[in-house]
């Protein structure tokens, strides 16, 4: 094969791979990837599951897709990680700046107002009460017989006193210790699939073909990605248009359960005046179901594999019995809506 041809073939393969990765995410309804933290590091669990890869691979694939411009990254947080293993599970300790021991105590510096003795709080504590170590007077009321004039750290090993301890980070995963100079304080990003990409892939969701088949079997004439002219003259796009006699169903699919999806359908419904407007909600949220009742739009949720809406058959059966009570098409029946809120 010529060198130029090889380059073209490889570019096409790469493009196909990218598309396949995005397709796998979208079909699982993963439109946004939020980072999570565990012992191993920053993870994108949904990507790992969708692509069946480990966390390191998922991260590098996401970064690659972002670099290609097919994913948008958004700053999410800053995370302290181990310089050795990259784990974000580090906890911090304070250390003595002189002997480096982590056995340091934060304490108050007290002054006995009457005799003027100044010392750390621990030297005033005697059998659970405060007693001036110089004059042995009991200290009862703060600001009357004693006052706090400052605070500091004291090393219990070398007794050195200091204002600001060293901060040492201990990795829970590999045991490495690090300081602010050696630990990694990394930026963590979330990723989002751009809306235009989602719309593009939405066109080929398996659920559309599955619904098309069911509707066709019930005698509907079905168009996927149809445009219908409304009263305004605007041609509104619908994911599915199904018609039988005078019954017209318009169906949109909402991948993320965004309420704007149902508002957009509401406006199209007003303009096109179908028998019934349906939105298939692939998300796990209940927001659309609640809005559907208010907007008179049937909201259908789907099975876990997102292959078919729950209750779609019963929804259609209800529609049938309303418009064709004798089990046959009847063009005299008007386009009254069938109220079925799943």
């Amino acid at each position, binding site marked *: 094969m010529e060198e130029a041809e090889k380059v073209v073939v490889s570019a096409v393969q790469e493009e196909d791979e990218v598309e396949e990765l995005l397709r796998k995410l979208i079909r699982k309804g993963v439109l946004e990837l939020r980072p999570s933290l565990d012992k191993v590091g920053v993870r994108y669990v949904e990507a790992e599951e969708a692509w069946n890869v480990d966390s390191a691979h998922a991260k590098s694939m996401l970064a690659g897709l972002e670099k290609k411009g097919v994913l948008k990254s958004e700053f999410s947080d800053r995370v302290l990680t181990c310089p050795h293993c990259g784990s974000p599970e580090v906890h911090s300790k304070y250390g003595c700046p002189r002997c480096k021991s982590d056995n340091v105590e934060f304490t108050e510096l007290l002054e006995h107002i009457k005799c003027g003795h100044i010392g750390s709080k621990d030297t005033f504590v005697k059998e659970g009460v405060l007693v001036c170590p110089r004059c042995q007077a009991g200290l009862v009321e703060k600001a009357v017989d004693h006052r706090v004039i400052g605070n500091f750290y004291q090393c219990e090993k070398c007794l050195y006193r200091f204002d600001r301890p060293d901060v040492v980070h201990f990795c829970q995963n590999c045991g490495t210790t690090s300081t602010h100079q050696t630990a990694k304080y990394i930026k963590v990003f979330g990723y989002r699939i751009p809306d235009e990409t989602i719309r593009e892939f939405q066109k080929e969701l398996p659920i559309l073909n599955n619904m098309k088949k069911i509707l066709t079997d019930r005698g509907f004439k079905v168009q996927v990605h149809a445009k219908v002219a409304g009263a305004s003259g*605007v*041609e509104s796009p619908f994911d599915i248009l199904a018609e039988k006699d005078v019954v017209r169903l318009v169906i949109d699919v909402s991948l993320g359960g965004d309420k*704007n999806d149902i508002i957009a359908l509401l406006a199209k419904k007003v303009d096109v005046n179908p028998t019934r407007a349906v939105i298939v909600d692939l998300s796990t949220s209940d927001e659309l179901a609640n809005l559907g009742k208010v907007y008179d739009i049937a909201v259908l949720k789907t099975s876990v594999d997102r292959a078919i809406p729950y209750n779609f058959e019963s929804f259609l059966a209800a529609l049938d019995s309303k418009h064709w009570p004798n089990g046959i098409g009847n063009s005299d029946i008007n386009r009254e809506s069938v109220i079925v809120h799943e």
Partner: protein
Amino acid sequence: MNEEKNVWLHKVAQKLFEEVTAASLGATFHVIISFHLKQKFGKDPYEVLIENPKIFYNGLKEVLGEGAEAVIKLIGTYITTKYDIHCTVEEFTQLFTRNGKPSTQKLSEIFATIVTQEEQKLRVP
């Protein structure tokens, strides 16, 4: 002069309505809604919006039912996020649901502020 200002403000309102809804609700949303509102009012709906926001809102409610509030909130969210208009989304929404001249005046002030801020952006090199 006042009439001239109103024409200018309703153009701003129309542009904002188009911009916000196109981004969130699809490119044809504003065309559909504008058509049905025009049928209802018998005149440019954005003129109505500037003259009396409550009448505009009631018209929108006749077209979209309960969806009207969501659309106004969407516009309010966009405007309060993008511009410094000293008004919360709730306050913005209330301008459409309350009767009276103060609401009309406040809404005109908001649109005028938006124009000023856009002009200032253009002046910054």
